[in-house]
């Protein structure tokens, strides 16, 4: 990488040559407006707002898609550029409804923000809106073509990052819209509900299905006993919605908040994660010891990954861990174990999950096993974004809340439980416990560094007393095909399996940048949130799931042993091949 000299607005800078003009300007605190460019994605150059002037050419060029070159002299702001950008912005506004007051993205919308910055005071051009109904077919997401500004970020992330191809540009010219190809709904498409489209959408065209009203209703119902759980990744992100530094741990404040909202018991999904590790590590140990020919074991905590495998790799279903995801385990424990202790019936409990994820909304009715308590184990899933909105609506001053503790026993977790929030966390937590299960000893260095970090595929070999356990971690579902094809090839050719244990998370970075997390995610944000998760791990004295005394108590008094009869009944699920297209 070499350094080039460029001039931005007559001032000379030295920047890396692999930057675009937009990125270089941003480093120099020069803000060029854009609605389609996103650091996660390749540049589609669709919106037309980032045009700048380059000395020596009469045309304006797009700052987002033009790399810097030695000697470039760039003008980013002048009267003419302002006029052109304002016209383009007004054109976009003429194709976008003025429903800001009732929009889910109100005050978090990039278009609204730009309109305010440009001082748009009148509508110069006649309103011309798309006349298409919203797609409400999934339980996770709502796609409203009327609000879509056609920037293409969702298509980019769905196709190039996630490799799902649920979304596509349909039609030409003014009739162009973004939807699944072939006149079908999202639910009939390969969509895995990961919600990365909603996390990248600059406006309110594709959003999580808002369930806050259902939670309010549950909280008002006096016959119900409302309980709640919070996922590991939410505690490092919710604070952002209230102005805290990215990645700040707000676990204690969240517990306090939820009590004030009216929940009678506050649990932590990280406890469910510890429980998941007990089951999943036991599965791994069983396979390693007794059925090495059935390896690899593949994690199944991520419902989008489950959906993806069922649709794209149904032939590999037998490798899936049958252990439920942490929040489903916690849900069923709340409605069985906890209910019994409180003298309640399962149907008396109203269980809300606070998740970083849109896909969890889909997971709660995925199969019959999600009703293991006799009723639906999780009643409502809220994303972190929805909880932030609910908090603001409740009038609670989040920042002045005290730190409180969760209710035991379903609220006490170890460091292993919380690192589920970052990519590699499930793998690391499982290895810590599997090592103990196999050797009876504690892993010397329990920070398994090779499985951490933002590299798309991470491969590592762990020595468990002479037995080499080969592991791989993939995140960002577009990366997973590499590993799956390696497994298919090994199965076809009869060669030894390249891996014993594989972790997959559908979202790049893991749950900390899940589809339901606060907006404006980039790699800096990912790193800070990840750091928060590992900080929480370090803060815990107990950092291995099997050490959790409440987990031991739960098995001792209620469940029996991992993979035992009761555990199998309540904590495991199954999978089936699903068609890519339902039409």
């Amino acid at each position, binding site marked *: 990488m070499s350094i080039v000299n460029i001039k931005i607005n007559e001032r000379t800078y030295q920047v890396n040559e692999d930057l675009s003009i937009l990125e270089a300007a941003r480093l120099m605190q020069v803000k060029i407006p854009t609605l389609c460019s996103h650091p996660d994605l390749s540049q589609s150059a669709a919106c*037309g707002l980032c045009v700048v002037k380059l000395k020596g050419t009469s045309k304006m060029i797009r700052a987002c*898609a033009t790399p810097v070159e030695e000697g470039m002299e760039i003008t980013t702001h002048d009267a003419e550029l302002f006029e052109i950008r304002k*016209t*383009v912005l007004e054109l976009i506004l003429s194709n976008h409804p003025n429903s800001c007051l009732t929009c889910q993205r109100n005050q978090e919308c990039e278009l609204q923000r730009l309109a305010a910055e440009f001082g748009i005071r009148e509508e110069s*051009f006649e309103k*011309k809106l798309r006349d298409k109904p919203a797609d409400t077919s999934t339980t996770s997401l709502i796609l409203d073509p009327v609000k879509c500004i*056609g920037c293409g970020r969702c298509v980019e992330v769905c196709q190039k990052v996630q490799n799902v191809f649920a979304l596509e540009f349909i039609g*030409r010219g003014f009739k*162009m819209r973004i939807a699944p190809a072939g006149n079908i709904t999202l639910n009939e498409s390969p969509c895995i509900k990961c919600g990365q489209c909603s996390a990248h959408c600059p406006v309110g065209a594709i959003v999580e299905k808002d369930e806050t009203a259902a939670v309010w209703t549950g909280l008002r119902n006096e016959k119900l006993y409302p309980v709640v759980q919070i996922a590991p990744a939410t505690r490092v992100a919710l604070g952002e919605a209230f102005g805290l530094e990215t990645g700040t741990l707000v676990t204690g404040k969240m517990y306090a908040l939820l009590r004030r909202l009216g929940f009678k018991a506050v649990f932590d999904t990280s406890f469910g994660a510890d429980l998941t590790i007990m089951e999943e590590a036991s599965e791994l140990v069983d396979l390693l010891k007794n059925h090495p020919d059935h390896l690899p074991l593949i994690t199944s905590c991520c419902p989008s990954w489950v959906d993806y495998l069922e649709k794209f790799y149904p032939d590999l279903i037998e490798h899936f861990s049958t252990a439920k995801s942490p929040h489903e385990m916690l849900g069923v424990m709340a409605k069985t174990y906890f209910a019994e202790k409180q003298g309640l019936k399962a149907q008396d409990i109203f269980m809300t999950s606070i998740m970083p994820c849109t896909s969890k909304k889909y997971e709660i009715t995925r199969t019959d096993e999600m009703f293991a308590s006799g009723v639906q184990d999780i009643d409502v899933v809220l994303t972190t974004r929805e909880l932030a909105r609910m908090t603001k609506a409740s009038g609670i001053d989040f920042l002045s809340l005290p730190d409180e503790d969760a209710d035991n026993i379903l609220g006490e977790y170890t460091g292993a439980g919380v690192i589920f929030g970052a990519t590699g966390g499930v793998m690391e937590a499982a290895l810590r416990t599997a090592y103990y299960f196999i050797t009876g000893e504690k892993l010397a260095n329990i920070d398994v560094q090779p499985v951490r970090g933002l590299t798309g595929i991470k491969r590592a070999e762990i020595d468990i007393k002479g037995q080499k356990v080969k592991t791989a971690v993939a995140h960002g579902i577009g990366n997973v095909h590499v590993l799956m094809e390696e497994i298919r090839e090994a199965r076809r050719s009869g060669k030894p399996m390249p891996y014993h244990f594989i972790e997959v998370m559908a979202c790049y970075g893991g749950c900390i940048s899940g589809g339901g997390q606060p907006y404006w995610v980039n790699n800096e944000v990912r790193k800070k949130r990840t750091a928060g998760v590992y900080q929480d791990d370090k803060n815990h004295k107990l950092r291995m799931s099997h050490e959790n005394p409440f987990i031991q108590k739960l098995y001792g008094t209620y469940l029996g042993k991992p993979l035992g009869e009761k555990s199998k009944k309540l904590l495991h699920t199954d999978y089936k091949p699903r068609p890519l297209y339902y039409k």
Partner: protein
Amino acid sequence: MNRYIFLSEPGNRSSDLFFYIQKALAEKGLDKKIGLVRTQNVGFYSSMPVMRVIPDDIVYKDLTHENINRIIEEHFIHKKPVTQLLHKVASPYVRLENRNEYYKQFRIVLRNMGCIDPENIRDYIKRDGYRGLEKILKNKMTPDDVIDELKISGLRGRGGAGFPTWKKWKLTQEVPGDEKYVICNADEGDPGAYMDRSTLEGDPHSILEGMTIAGFAVGSRQGYIYIRAEYPLAIKRLEIAISQARELGLLGPNILGTDFSFDIELRWGAGAFVCGEETALIASIEGNRGMPRPRPPYPSVKGLWDKPSVINNVETYANVPVILDKGGSWFAKIGTETSKGTKVFALTGKTKNSGLIEVPMGMTLREIIFDIGGGIKDNKKIKAVQTGGPSGGVIPESYLDTPVSYESLQKLGSIMGSGGMIVMDEDDCMVDVSKYYLQFAVDESCGKCSPCRIGGKQLYDLLEKISKGSAVDQDLDRIKRIGQAMLKASLCGLGQNTPNPVLSTLKYFPEEYDEHIRMKKCRTGKCKDLVTYLIDPDKCIGCSLCALRCPVKAITGEKKKPYFIHQDMCIKCGECYNVCKFSAVKRD
């Protein structure tokens, strides 16, 4: 055989005419001496069918059976041309060697049009075909020699923007690696333009040879022709040409016995206009949705399947073999300082003659329209000429003495484009013309970038308002604002040039817009909402002709008494106005 008749007809099947001539020749015992060949058009659709007699270079029109008998009798037996049946404009076949000043046209691209059987490679070879390629390979020229020759020639891309061809090739040649592609853009789609189709149908080998030379120059082994599926005859002829070239070792492995290998395949386009844009075209060949992507990287460096790719259009490739055969300096003598060679135009609209023409760069628009096109039909006055298709602009009569070159047309707010040239007379309404082109561009926008997707639609609707008489003064400012934004902020050439027709008419004919907006009037009657047809009872003699011609029976009356138009039924077609011999029908 000492003479050939090349018969050019519309359509693709041998007609009665063909068999009649065959029979007539046989009856006179001439069938052994005179060969009869069906061929592609000679450039003038309006007077098809025509026949060209080679080597006499004479073109006959009005081919009735009677006239054919006369031609055979007088031309072939008595050796005297039938002057009454000569096609005045097409007749002079202009040789490459001897440019005929008198007849204006000068053919390089269309050199073989109507003179060869396009399904027979030997016809092409007889007329110096594949000599350019042979020269390169036999004389052991290097790729650099070839590119230098192009540089000397000054050839610029004929697809619209006029980028120097040698520079494009050089960029691709300089990228290391041996997987490179040569692509021919045959996705011609401008309304009223058929230059590329005619070249492909009439002289397919010239494209194959040009592409092969490009392959040699840039170090590619594979070429693709991206051609619209709506051109079945061109596809068929190309397929025949490719297989014949392969048979003779002019395509495929080890061309002409050297170690240079190159082959060509066809890729069909589904008729999206935007796929003529090079990055959208590449996306389409790759099997993706045809949408432009930002440049850089340019296709010359990162193109098809991310490999360096040369993309030129049909006309550009057709020039290449001649440049290599005759030398770059020969080519550079033709044309202007910055625009060398010739340009093919599809001359259409209100001129007396219309069809494909090829003229040296630097000829004025007036010469083209009046000397070749024969002037305006029905003694009407010329108002303007539109060049460059939906991406081009309208040039008013006052600028007709402008010599044609890339720069001069651009200066006037139009572009050379691929070569559409539509002549308009006083009956054409400039608002209506802009609306027509805008409708096309709006329909064909891919919808990717917001300036084009929304701006185009807004522009069209504003013009619609003007043509309906409901526009206000501020709408003109809106048009100018949107036009500027599209010009500057659209992603590809399609969007950037979409406002050209409306901006140029607004510039040169502001008074017409003014009339529409302020006086709610359209002087030509094309904007039907602004026109009323009335019968002047003082002038009407009650002949009933208008009532008979009215397609919706909106005119009633008694014979020999003034007739009357029922306004609620009138569809404003203007038929009554056109047929009235007493000027009794008034247009208001």
